[in-house]
């Protein structure tokens, strides 16, 4: 499943980068993310709660921030296993300055497997866009609160 989109965040690229790579901010802003524990080298153990159609539950896994270029770009990888199967995300994020702040662009792939893939597959990309929208909306709100 392709993930692609962009969002304007009212802050500088450096600040936005800081927000997006701060575990505390992520736990506050990412829907369902319950816990992120750093394990070094930009890697975190993570725990998420998600529900797609009738398959709800807690996914445990990891998240890494790779190829990080401070204030410009990074690659986010996540993998989680839960009751309905697995979720894996591999996404490139780039930040560029604009008149209104920062244009955040993301492009990547999400894979789901197991039971969750077989139920409501046609809704999944809609659900994913919705979650991404919620996430970056919350980040934008954080940016406004900490100018």
């Amino acid at each position, binding site marked *: 499943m392709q993930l692609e989109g962009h969002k304007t965040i009212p802050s500088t690229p450096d600040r936005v980068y800081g927000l997006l790579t701060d575990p505390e901010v992520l736990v506050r802003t990412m829907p369902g993310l319950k816990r992120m524990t750093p394990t070094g080298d930009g890697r975190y153990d993570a725990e998420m709660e998600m529900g797609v*159609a009738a398959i709800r*539950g*807690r996914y445990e896994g990891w998240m890494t921030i790779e190829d990080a270029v401070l204030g410009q770009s990074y690659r986010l990888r996540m993998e989680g*296993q*839960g*009751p309905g*199967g*697995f979720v894996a995300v591999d996404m490139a994020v780039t930040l560029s300055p604009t008149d209104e702040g920062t244009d955040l662009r993301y492009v990547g792939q999400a*894979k*789901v*497997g*197991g*039971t969750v*893939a*077989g*139920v*409501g*597959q*046609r809704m999944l990309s809609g659900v994913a866009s919705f979650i991404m929208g919620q996430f970056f909306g919350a980040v934008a709100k954080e940016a406004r609160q900490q100018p």
Partner: protein
Amino acid sequence: MSKLVGTPVKRREDARLITGHGNFTDDVRLPGQAYAEILRSPHAHARILSIDTTAAQAMPGVVKVYTGQDLAGRVGTVPTAWIPPASDLKQVPHAVLAVETVRYVGDGVAMVVADDPYIARDALDRIVVEYQTLPAVTDQREAMAEGAPQLHADAPGNVALHWTVGNDTDEVFAQAEVVVRQEFRQQRLIPNPMEPRAATAQYLSATDELTVWLTTQNPHIHRLLLSGILGIPEHRLRVIAVDVGGGFGSKIACYPDEVLVAYAARDLNRPVKWTEDRREHFMATTHGRDHYEEVELAGSRDGVLQGIRVKSYANMGAYLSTAGPGVPTILFGLIVNGAYRMPVASSEVFGVFTNTTPTDAYRGAGRPEATYIIERMVDLFAQTIGQDPLEVRRRNLLRADEFPYTNPFGLAYDSGNYHAALDQALTMVDYPAFRQEQAALRAQGQYVGIGFSTYVEMCGLGPSQVAGAVGFQGGLWESATVRVHPSGKVQVFTGASPHGQGEETTFSQLVADQLGIPIDDVDIVHGDTARVAMGWGTYGSRTMVVGGAAISTAVDRVIEKARRIAAHMLEVSPEDVVFEDGVFHPEGVLDRQATFAEVTIQAYLAWNLPQGVEPSLEASAYYDPTNFTYPFGTHIAQVSVDADTGEVRVTKYVAVDDCGPVVNPMIVEGQVHGGIVQGIGQALYEGAVYDDDGQLVTGSFMDYTMPRARFFPQIETAHTVTPSPHNPIGVKGVGETGTIASTPAVVNAVMDALSGFGIQHLDMPLTPEKVWRAMQQVQDEQ
């Protein structure tokens, strides 16, 4: 006494089934019973790096967690039971739980046994499996390509089997005036009986006996296979399947799941139950169909068919299921010429491993695929030479005086009257009027079509000799024991294993008529290997044909013995005694008689039996047929296609089937209706879809279109009666005819409706989107 055979006796089993008194596997509740759940792979292809069961094992209420490593060396692998000859079949090992590699989404990885089903389910989430994912392949032709992911070391190129059959077609095709070529896709279907699979097992240490209640169509085959896999001798294994809520072929196979449950019950010395849920069913119960077929049909310009050549690629899934290899080969390749006279024909079949759920029989099993391609090809041929498809059929259908007819593959079609069925069906539609109306509607931009399917099938599987010749690892005879109790009540023990087809009723009709006793004096006992010594089960439309013939033969033996006792009582010689309506009397003398009940009690008292006659009244028969049976018929579908949405509506459906004498017209009608809607399900609605990573994206009823009653018009049925010449009761199977005939009838009708667009063929399912896009494309091009 009025005869019951041929009348619509209400189903005796229904009272218990519809009032909640059925005895299904999940209804079995045993003291101390534990519950199993199976962890299934979420990946289509992956190496298992590690499995950590510690947290699951530590949960209160968890009895034991099993992995593939735990069972290696303790439990055998699950074999296939069909090895087509000269097919180079690769019998790859199928472990009951994956050890190093998982090969499809749904492959078993671990099993939890717990005190409570919810604890077992929760414990699955606590098992941590580390996978290294591998590239997956789900399409059989891609799997055969160079560089494709390889599933099994012993099956290079993922080829599970390569089988060819038929006679030399080269000369006929080289010289033919017309050769029509078409490729077909038979999409994968997911069988969905109302009851998912389940198993409950109990081990009795005192007698060292293991009992397995199981959702099976063939308990004795299951006993045989479980015995081999578990290393438990057959006489200490008992398989019980009292009520089974449908199978459609998906409950033939021996699955790893029941092996695991049986193993755990003995290992833990405690009853264990496992019940599949519907989501699990979609991924872990065998699927059906899934072929690509490249077909060539040769004929003359004036409409005479001369030969057919088929090359088929069948998706076997990740492992070979019990009957899996026989379905796309024997049950398909031998009958691709259909009901038509053809001097030459050949079939070549590749069975291919892919990272998908294993495939096996699904109602019709091979014969729907064969019928679909020949019936579609006849229409395409008619179109090519500019003739009416009805005329091509009339010209090439075998005539009644041509039987017995041996087809190019050596199948002996022993009887038939195909033109009579076609004529009968044509009395139920007004074909010329339809063609006129079609033209008139087309002028108004409305599209309707009519499609024919003039089919024949082979069923009523055996004979056993043929089973051996085609590599089926079992016999195909059937057993019956008829036990008359001292009071004259009768129990019939059958090796067939009805699971929804209503044979408790139809078998009773046969027996009650033959013995001249009330139907309530007869009970049918089935589905228990401890009560029925041996049998081969219910599939391939064989139960009335083979099982019924066995019962009828056993009843004859009971009557013969009773006649000797009656003759002794009446003081005449047995040859002079007539048995009519339950009464023995000397020929022509009605005032001296002995009723069946009076004879029976004498047989048990044995105070005064004739010389050489043993006490009691019971007989067994082991009936092995001498040929398949060949039901046939004509189905006609009328459809309309919505030009704006592409939606296909079936507006009229006529089915004329010939299954020989009809034992119970109501039950036969039910079989025909159910079969037809299942076949139309393939034509218009159903289809399993895997994504590129091998994820099954049609894994629920939200995503997989099951046909519903409102999709269909009232189905009109009729019959011609051509008895099977070799079957003692003349019957031919009717359990699969609907599914076999209806798919091409409907697709032919849709293609007929679209003929004005110049669309020759669309692959199934003919969803609104597919049909709309095809019409749109033509309009865009114009």
